[in-house]
């Protein structure tokens, strides 16, 4: 055993120093390498998870917004249609009314004109009767005068 220890230059103190070296390095690397790196890896993981969550929330909000937009559009369409329908029916009613009044007016005008024309006709007839009578009397007078 002594020979082996001698051949390899084994020295317990050197082994202890090396174990202490290991301890020092482990503590130092723990402070400068392992802890900070593991911490930053964890931070990054958290951040990515947060980012994914945010993205999901945003996507959901977007979907909701688009759904709302669709419903608003549909509503507006329906309302517009109804308004147009109502307007059309109102317009139809008014047009019918106007037509009716116009027809009535036209009828009235026509009948009045007929009456007037009848009156004028009869007046003209009467006038002409009177004139014819006068003319006849005059003619008779003329004839009588010549005979006389």
């Amino acid at each position, binding site marked *: 055993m002594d020979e082996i220890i001698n*051949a*390899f*230059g*084994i*020295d317990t*103190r*050197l*082994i*202890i*120093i*090396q*174990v202490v*070296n*290991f301890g*020092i*390095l*482990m503590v*130092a*690397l*723990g*402070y*400068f*390498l*392992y802890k*900070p*790196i*593991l*911490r*930053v*890896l964890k*931070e*990054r993981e958290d*951040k990515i998870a947060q980012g994914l969550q945010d993205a999901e929330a945003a996507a959901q909000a977007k979907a909701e917004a688009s759904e709302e937009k669709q419903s608003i559009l549909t509503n507006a369409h329906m309302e517009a249609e109804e308004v147009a329908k109502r307007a059309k029916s109102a317009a139809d009613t008014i047009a019918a009314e106007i037509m009716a009044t116009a027809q009535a007016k036209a009828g009235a005008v026509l009948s009045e004109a007929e009456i007037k024309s009848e009156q004028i006709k009869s007046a003209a007839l009467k006038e002409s009767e009177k004139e014819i009578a006068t003319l006849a009397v005059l003619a008779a007078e003329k004839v009588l005068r010549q005979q006389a």
Partner: protein
Amino acid sequence: MVAYGRKNELAFLGTYFMFSFIATAHAASEAGIHVVLKPYIVGELFGVPLTATLITTWITMLLLIVGTFFVSRKPALIPTKIQSIAEMVVGGVYEYMSNVLESRILAQRYFPIVITIFIFVLALNWIGLLPGVTAVGLYHDGHFTPLLYPAATDLNITVAFALIAFVTIEVAGVVALGTFKYLGKFINFHSPLAFVLGIIELISEIARLISFSFRLFGNMFAGKTLLVVTMFFIPYLAPVPLYAFEVFVGFIQAFVFAVLTLFFIKVAVTEPH
């Protein structure tokens, strides 16, 4: 006269070559290939021998501490390239340990030891391969003593690593199962077969100290020796593929050391059946 002169000349040349050959051979035995199992002792510090491998270890530690101080002490959320590498190593080892141990708590507990073994051994192996590591040194009465030498070629250092791994494994077993249950893995009287198997387990458990330390020592020492021999005989080009191979071996040995520690921790914390 001329002929004599030429003959003389030839004789002179002959002796010259002969002597120069002897001189080279002499140099080879003296300063050329010099392989010893012991670490080089450079001096003494507080009564403790100061070895070249110990100096190399301290320089390696200094480089690692200063390097990580500047690279990863305050990591950014958006990483730089070097920080990405640090994240890959640290995060990768952590994930791997969590998977193997099947527990975040256990992974967190033994993570610093396992990853420090990996990083420390890897750094020691790779820094040991840097040119100049064996070349810088002192002359003592005509003997050359390098100041820097690949650390894992010193059994003191690999034994220290093996002890750390061994103690970690046993402590992990005791903490996870309790002293009596853990001891019961090795010494039990359920049946004669169980008793024999337990004793075999105990022997293989203790043999790990030797296998851990000598695996690393043997690989790195053999690699260093191979490089030294090759560089002595064929200094140009031939060592290049060997250098590449030693870079690979340096990584593999660090990896194997850390992964075996991890696996044995897993074995130790597993309930006996």
